[in-house]
């Protein structure tokens, strides 16, 4: 699905299901230089098992327009604004790699919007290939 957010077009895969506000929501967060497609199978499973499975491309990634966000905090805030745009009160955040840091930061600063977090491939500190931008130090 496409969502207008911050004046640009954001994309989120939902497992071929429309969102149902009566269901609990899951937001699946991809890692650096990746996109929603790392979560396709998981999203489809949850979407067909009683969950909203919101699987966004972060700005500047995959099908979402705009420049990449410069920090983990900015990505966490963007996720909260995405929940606003989708009229979802809260969600479980599942993050892979860089996305796991986004989940931690969002939970720490927006506890009312984050019901739980699940972290995949998470380490602190997290080092990245020097060829890609490193938002983790900011």
């Amino acid at each position, binding site marked *: 699905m496409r969502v207008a957010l911050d004046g640009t077009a954001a994309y989120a895969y939902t497992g071929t299901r429309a969102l149902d506000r009566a269901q609990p929501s899951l937001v699946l967060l991809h890692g650096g230089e990746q996109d929603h*497609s790392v979560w*396709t*199978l998981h999203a489809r*499973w949850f979407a*067909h098992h009683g969950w909203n499975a919101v699987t966004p491309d972060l700005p500047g990634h995959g099908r979402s327009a705009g420049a990449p966000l410069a920090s983990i905090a900015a990505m966490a805030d963007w996720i909260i604004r995405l929940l606003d745009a989708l009229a979802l009160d809260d969600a479980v955040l599942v993050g892979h790699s860089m996305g796991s840091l986004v989940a931690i930061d969002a939970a720490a600063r927006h506890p009312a919007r984050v019901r739980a977090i699940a972290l995949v491939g998470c380490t602190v500190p997290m080092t990245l290939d020097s060829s890609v931008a490193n938002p983790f130090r900011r």
Partner: protein
Amino acid sequence: MSDEHRFDTLALHAGAAPDPATGARATPIYQTASFAFRDADHAAALFNLERPGHVYSRLSNPTVAVLEERMAALEGGVGAVACASGQAALHLAIATLMDAGGHVVASRALYGGSHNLLAYTLPRFGIRTTFVDPRDLDAWRTAIGPDTRLLFGETLGNPGLDVLDISRVAGIAHEHGLPLMVDSTFTTPWLMQPITHGADLVMHSATKFLSGHGLVIAGVLVDSGRFDWQASARFPQMTAPYAGFHGLSFAEESDVAAFILRARREGLRDFGACMSPTTAFHVLQGVETLGLRMQRHVANTRRVIEWLRTESGIERIAYPELPDHPDHALAKALLPRGCGAVFSFDVQGGRPAGRRFIEALRLFSHLANVGDARSLVIHPASTTHFRMDAQALAAAGIGEGTIRLSVGLEDVHDLLEDLSRGLAAALKG
């Protein structure tokens, strides 16, 4: 297995690992029609693309999957579907890309089987083809219409080995929001990787050099993953919800592999022209030595041509490495490792001389195939094209004395002795 490895390493390893169940180092033949589900939810998840795994060997099979991954790696694609034959691969591609009313622009220098499908059979299902001279770029461009969904040619055309200018033809296709598919059977990825030149889809008759030993009928279809189906807007098959899969959109499911996903989930499911696991195993044995074999095929071919050029009674040799071939310069750029091991030449004396030539050979097998480890020969005017008169043959680029060879892996001296015997018989008349 990293795609960073080099060709000959990928040819041995891509898509395979020691068998997780038994440790078997060679890829086992999973000769089974179906795969047991762990429970009802596992079954439902497999059917609904929520879990990776195998359900039924018409859709996917572990042995076949190794071949598919290996071919995708060797061609530089994102995925592949193995098919019952090269014909099945061609049909699967077309049926995935278009409905009745669709249109193909194809090179007129095609394998006869492909020509039959496009010229005679697909029109019965409402799919038309315009054939063009593959060297005439304007003809490709002007043949494209609002219903066109595919441009199609062969890396080396039949029978004159016309070299397809892939980057230019791909450029024309992409200007019109269309994909280019290339039949790379004669070249194999060892001689050329069409995707690196701009092709969007690649198909093979794996019966030929890929399997390499004349054992099986097999085909492979490879998706480059580079064609933007959403941007084209000509392919609702890829971008619109598909009622046959609960409203799933293939381009939504996969940014890069929408085509190959639909080819499997619809085409293999409904048309059913899948590859058997045992066939995949045989093709894999060939692919593992592809580089070594192609080097020898090309070396033997070059030596045979060098010999033919010194013999009297030979009127014409069609091989792009020769300076008088119309695509000589293009071949040097696209095919520096060689122009394959199938070529034709004309013997003086027409149809009777051609027949005598064939019948005198003892080592070359007289049959309708190419790309075997053994050397093969055919005389089109007395076999595949025997109903045609001289004029019709000429229109097809074939002379009455045209002989086609598929040069095998034997000691080349023995091949030259055999050809020498054939030529002597041909010229005796």
